[in-house]
């Protein structure tokens, strides 16, 4: 056993787990964060994607012992972060996946949303090709992808509208 000092969804956590466990195992079986899915467990599907210092990373192939100093974001962290930043409802990507019907069984969704989250953080106005490219490591066996791409595009637009309306509100005020 080893005591891992992790930073998960903004909180420091100390958690004891076998030293050889993956980050995914620690998240799911020690911290109860089952939003990150255990699909193929060997790098093929992207269902276990989390953000490590903002970068999409496969938690099934990451040893917990190698991410101790980094910020880990799982799907469970998005809504609280959105609310803490003064937002309403869920994260715009979560809302948009819901509204666009971008899921059927939902198994791929946490990984898809986190890959998309990292894309929008770096590139708030992505093209369809850029969206496709950034989701190329996330497999979906149900939807056929079209609505997933649409959901990300819609979330980007919603984000931009929100940003533009706050900017113009500020301009009006000043």
């Amino acid at each position, binding site marked *: 056993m*080893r005591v891992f000092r992790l930073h998960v969804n903004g909180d420091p956590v100390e958690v004891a787990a*076998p*030293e*050889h*466990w*993956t980050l995914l195992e620690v998240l799911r079986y020690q911290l109860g964060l089952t939003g990150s899915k*255990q699909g193929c*467990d*060997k*790098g*093929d599907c*992207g269902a276990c*994607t989390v953000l490590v210092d903002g*970068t*999409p*990373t*496969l938690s*099934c*192939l*990451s*040893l917990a*012992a*190698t991410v101790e100093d980094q910020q880990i974001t799982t799907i469970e962290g998005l809504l609280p972060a959105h609310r803490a930043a003064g937002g309403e409802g869920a994260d715009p990507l979560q809302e948009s996946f819901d509204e666009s019907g971008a899921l059927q069984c939902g198994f791929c969704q946490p990984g898809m949303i986190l*890959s998309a989250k990292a894309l929008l953080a770096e590139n708030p106005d992505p093209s369809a090709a850029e969206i496709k*490219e*950034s989701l*190329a*490591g*996330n*497999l979906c066996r149900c939807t056929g992808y079209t609505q997933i791409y649409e959901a990300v595009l819609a979330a980007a637009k919603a984000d931009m509208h929100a940003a533009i309306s706050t900017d113009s509100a500020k301009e009006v005020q000043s």
Partner: protein
Amino acid sequence: MLRLPKFEVKNPATAEEAVAMILEIEGDARFIAGGTDLNPNMKHGLFAPERVIALNGIGELQGIRLDEDGSMRIGAMATLAEVTKHAELNQFYPALCQAAKLVSGPQLRNMGTLGGNVMLDTRCQWYNQTYFWRKSLGYCMKKDGSKCHVVEGGSKCVAAASNDTAPALMTLNAELEFVTTEGRARLPIADLWQADGIWNKKLPHTALLVAIHLPKPAANSHGAYGKLRDRGSVDFPLFGIAARLNFGSDGTIEDAALCAVALQARPWPLKKAASLLIGTHPGKDDFNDAVEKVANLAAKQCRPMPNIPGDHEYRHLMVPVFTRRTLHAAASDEGPVHHV
């Protein structure tokens, strides 16, 4: 669910400390970089080290920089994503960036390192399988068994070098800086490989790759990488080929290099074929004629085997196609070449 074997994890701060930590274990111990090759392999029971030594805390393995003599130093822990995005690397060593960009998918390029890609284990459809799968078929010579399912009666494992960046680094005459028990040494990448699929490197797994050095490029150096694969993402190469072409001031090809991968245990340099391009003029008939000859010769010299998934006769038919396309792409700076 695939479980890792039990091991302890060490987090050294220097290269020398890492080498000392791998040597002090009597049984097996392994370095781990991005873990995108080692972790699946351990989950499949292909390695069961008692100790895993994480390289991510070693400062000198990080980063990409231009050295004073005009060469580039890429730390072994530089990720494939970093390589892909690096401006000078894209400008001067396009084949390397194109190959890195075609490795797997985005998350694996964020995690996977260039050092790990060079040191990648060879691959075979009879080997990269779960323990249960391998056991059901009576194992094979590379792990736990005694026969080869690819070459019946064969005495040597022919599992394929499948690292996309290796052929690009071969055409660029990269040098590898290692720390071993004997200290520090630099090795031309062409001298790393041996024709043994069980372990295709001349150095043992306890040698630590610290950095990849790329010599200063010639003034007018062009390159491209071509990759045949099933899908547009995630898949390992069914065939890969890297090209470098150096143009003289009048546009004549003065030097050329070609190297293929996903054939046998070693990346496969095509020296004679590349030499046919020297003295020709891209954009003119002599170059186009030479490219056809090179493509035909490549098809003679590259013989895909049923070691990796995919129809090997189809892969063979694609050798001249991808050789031709990659050379034209290198000459016109239009790589990479891939079909999806």
